């Protein structure tokens, strides 16, 4: 039976709370501007005032939130210090980018409402200023012509137009600048651009600096005006509004005085801005620490392995680092999963050559050359991280299912190596009692660098007589006729013709339904961690299977699905 609540419950709760706060802020600030103080403002612009101020409040809230999920080091710190917290809470921290995107969509949505409302505001203020007859709008617009501080209508002359006013006020200019920055950020963050042209996405995203500057100075002009508190006592709108022709002439109704709201946004965003600046400083400082490349290995299937050392570097299994190679590019940082185990004296990454940066790194590290490279010829590297991912949780489950697709197997390389070391050292703290490992791969070449690791593990376990500890399946999802002929001939042999392992390579995609059923049957009542590093489609499928095969009964078997992808 499905146990959707266990897997998704906390995330849904967080989203609902966030939506609830948005709705509350919207309604609350809508009502604030229905107050008496803004009676005369509303005479000029009507409901458009509330429709502009309510999303503004929501914008303050969301702009405060948007910087937080991208403070990687802060989140890593929270994750680390949260060892005592339940797995569920730390798992929410893995969904930081999803939350960042949701908040971004909300910002775009509220920006749209805010702008449309202000379009009406500008138009109506202009109409009021253009009044020829002595209507209340005309009288209100004339207030403040002598002194510049008590005006109501921010458009002060009738010889202008809304467009001109928009571009000559601080609020207008900063608004346009921020909105343009936001639009450019959003269009360059579309999946198509982000996945294929990462640099465009990354550099354009830094327009957020302009966005925040515009946001903070947006209210400095104080052009949203309402009656001062003292003026409301003297000139009560419900009584005096109809007597607008006699304001100042009648003792009951002096001319109303107006003032603007001081800017509030900075109070909301200053905290996260400081945190984010701090985050970038930490990243910069970490990147300045000396990193030495100790070994470079070129693997088939265009994969480069870099083994490095850095003083004080501590990692956990399955974490990732951001690498920068100044000789290739001063500005680009790219994330790579660590493929080494914490027990080793170095850390390593396996980099697949897919684009400009990876290709240039390959050449800089002497990948093209056959002969031995001197250590001093290797490029300087900078490393930021390591950052936490769900793989750290692997050791918290008694039974784990690890699924890696193609290059997605890399975090599990780290896990399995660590398992090997702990096994080797007879580590009694080794919690997992059974590991099911699935590797889905298209090309046979990709096996080589990983096959060695699996071979060592296989031998180790046979020696210890615990061949059942690690159960692994390798699925080859694409083959051609030449390969098929080769397999057919070698079918009888004890070791697999591709990997040299005792476990035979399987073909096609796994039947997940069967796999989950079998595993559930083997371990009733256990909490089974399912870890995937692979494409979205597979994630959906496994997530569904995890939910379907989990018992509704809390004492029954539970599959907890964890996904990571970059």
């Amino acid at each position, binding site marked *: 039976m499905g146990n959707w609540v266990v897997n998704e419950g906390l995330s849904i709760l967080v989203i609902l709370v966030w939506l609830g706060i948005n709705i509350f802020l919207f309604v609350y600030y809508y009502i604030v501007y229905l107050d008496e103080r803004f009676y005369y403002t509303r005479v000029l612009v009507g409901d458009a005032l509330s429709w502009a101020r309510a999303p503004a409040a929501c914008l303050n809230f969301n702009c405060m939130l948007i910087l937080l999920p991208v403070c990687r080091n802060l989140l890593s710190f929270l994750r680390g210090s949260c060892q005592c917290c339940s797995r569920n809470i730390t798992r929410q921290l893995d969904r930081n980018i999803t939350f960042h995107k949701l908040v971004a969509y909300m910002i775009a949505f509220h920006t*749209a409402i805010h*702008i*449309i409302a202000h*379009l*009406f505001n*500008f*138009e109506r203020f*202009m*109409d009021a200023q253009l009044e020829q007859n002595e209507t209340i709008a005309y009288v209100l617009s004339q207030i403040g012509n002598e002194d510049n501080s008590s005006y109501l209508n921010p458009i002060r002359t009738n010889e202008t*137009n*809304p*467009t001109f006013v*928009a571009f000559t006020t601080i609020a207008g200019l900063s608004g*346009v600048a921020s*909105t*343009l920055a936001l*639009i*450019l950020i*959003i*269009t*360059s963050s*579309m999946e*198509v*651009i982000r996945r*294929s*042209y990462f*640099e*465009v996405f990354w550099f354009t995203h830094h327009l957020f600096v302009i966005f925040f500057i515009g946001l903070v100075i947006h209210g400095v002009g104080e052009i949203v005006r309402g009656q001062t508190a003292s003026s409301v006592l003297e000139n009560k709108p419900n009584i005096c509004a109809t007597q607008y022709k006699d304001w100042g002439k009648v003792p009951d109704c002096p001319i109303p005085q107006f003032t603007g709201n001081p800017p509030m946004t900075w109070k909301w965003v200053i905290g996260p801005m400081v945190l984010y600046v701090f985050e970038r400083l930490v990243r910069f400082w970490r990147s300045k620490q000396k990193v030495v490349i100790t070994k470079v290995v070129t693997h088939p299937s265009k994969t480069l392995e870099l083994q490095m050392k850095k003083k004080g570097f501590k990692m956990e299994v399955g974490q990732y680092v951001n690498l920068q190679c100044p000789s290739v590019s001063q500005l680009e940082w790219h994330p790579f999963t660590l493929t080494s185990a914490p027990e080793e004296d170095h850390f390593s990454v396996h980099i697949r050559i897919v*684009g*400009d940066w990876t290709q240039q790194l390959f050449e800089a590290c002497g990948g093209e050359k056959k002969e031995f490279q001197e250590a001093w010829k290797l490029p300087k590297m900078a490393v930021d991280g390591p950052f936490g991912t769900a793989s750290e949780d692997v050791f918290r489950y008694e039974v784990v299912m690890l699924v890696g697709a193609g290059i997605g197997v890399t975090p599990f390389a780290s896990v399995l190596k660590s398992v090997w070391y702990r096994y080797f050292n007879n580590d009694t703290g080794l919690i997992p009692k059974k590991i099911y490992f699935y590797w889905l791969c298209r090309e046979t070449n990709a096996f080589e660098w990983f096959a060695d690791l699996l071979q060592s593990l296989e031998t180790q376990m046979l020696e210890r007589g615990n061949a059942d500890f690690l159960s692994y399946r390798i699925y080859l999802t694409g*083959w051609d006729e030449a*390969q*098929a*002929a080769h*397999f*057919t*001939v070698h*079918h*009888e042999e004890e070791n697999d013709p591709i990997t040299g392992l005792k476990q035979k390579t*399987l*073909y*096609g*995609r796994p*039947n997940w339904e069967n796999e989950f059923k079998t595993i559930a049957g083997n371990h009733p009542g256990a909490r089974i961690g399912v870890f995937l590093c692979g494409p979205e489609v597979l994630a959906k499928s496994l997530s569904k299977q995890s939910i379907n095969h989990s018992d509704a009964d809390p004492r029954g078997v539970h599959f907890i699905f964890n996904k990571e992808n970059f």
Partner: protein
Amino acid sequence: MGQIEWAMWANEQALAAGLILLTGGVVGVAGQFKDWQFAAYGVAAGVFICLLEYPRGKRKKGTSIERTGQRYLTVCVKAFGPLTRNYYVRAGLHAVLSVPGGFMLPTVLGCVCVAIASLIYLLAAIRGEQWEPIMPRVESKERPGQSMKEPPSNPPPRPPAELRRKRQEDAAYVNPIPISVNSV
């Protein structure tokens, strides 16, 4: 930055700009603003730009992902031949289309966004990019295992039947009916 096809980003920007211009136009017309004629223009221009930019072009390298239902518009856009293929033309067209939006506040944002899209298209044109239509694939591959009605089109490699029979003792279950030479 060598591999970037700027046209991809220009396309996203132009589509967004079209929507913004359209929205601004609708506000201007619905609110009966002064100079609403420019808003009406904004609606028309916005719709036109959206229709023109909706079909994504084919990427030179990598897989091109279509937008939902873009096939019909692809045919229309393709029909204009060099006018839509050439990005200089598009850059110029967007530059011209953006100008009337600048005369009225609701459409100003649309105007600037379309102008930016025009600039990015200009960059794409300078780099020699072209709009190629994404043509529909002939048929999609049948996934193994999902249809049980037909024999697998690309069955996993197996040794000849005699060898397979020898491994019967490894089988998960024993077939109650003995296998003859003709059964597979």
